[in-house]
């Protein structure tokens, strides 16, 4: 068990270290993550959404459906916790 776990760790670590070669340097402002849609958000957020905080503008305006799905996740988790942890009535289930 322990040997298998360490084997998995070494394999995953090797793959990750191999993959770092293709990642951008730390603080690189021309990295792929900040060169496609992110400049558009920074330039247009204030004009289009009138929100000074770009994170809020993207979270609630550009990606509002994502946030809605997030609230669905929270709702489902809450319902699941309630169903699992409620007190059973007499004569119900095990």
């Amino acid at each position, binding site marked *: 068990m*322990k040997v298998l776990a*360490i084997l998995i760790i070494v394999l995953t670590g090797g793959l990750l270290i191999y993959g770092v070669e293709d*990642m951008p340097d730390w603080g690189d402002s021309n990295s792929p993550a900040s060169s496609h849609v992110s400049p558009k958000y*920074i330039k247009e957020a204030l004009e289009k959404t009138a929100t*000074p905080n770009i994170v809020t503008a993207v979270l609630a305006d550009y990606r509002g459906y994502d*946030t809605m799905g997030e609230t669905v996740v929270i709702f489902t988790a809450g319902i*699941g*916790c309630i169903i699992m942890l409620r007190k059973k009535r007499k004569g119900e289930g095990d």
Partner: protein
Amino acid sequence: MLEYIISKYNFWVYIILLLIGLYAMVGKKNLVKKLIGMNIFQSAVILFYVSIGVKKGGATVPIFLGDAHAAHGHGHAIIEVASYINPLPHVLMLTAIVVSIATTGVALAVLILIFRRYKTLELDEIIKIRKDTGV
């Protein structure tokens, strides 16, 4: 070689953190320890994403202060992309943090149910009880 290691040092830190979480998930037998390992794993991914958004050279948090808002009123705002860090990873990780809280809560509820039934949280003991009782 040393320059290569230093220029990508954030990734090394997150690889170590992620492997600690993965080891706890795979190698430990206590279910609570597995859950803590999952949280460490998620933290590694979240920190990784946030570090992707960093821009060197005087970039600040992506919030326009009062003067920028006033300039917006006149319609002549000139916004330098390089002076604000990438907001996108922050948005995505805000969502990821919320989802990780939800999964942790559900997992803890499941652990409570498991403990009520088997009176233990050790995985090998649970498997043994299940074999003995033939459930």
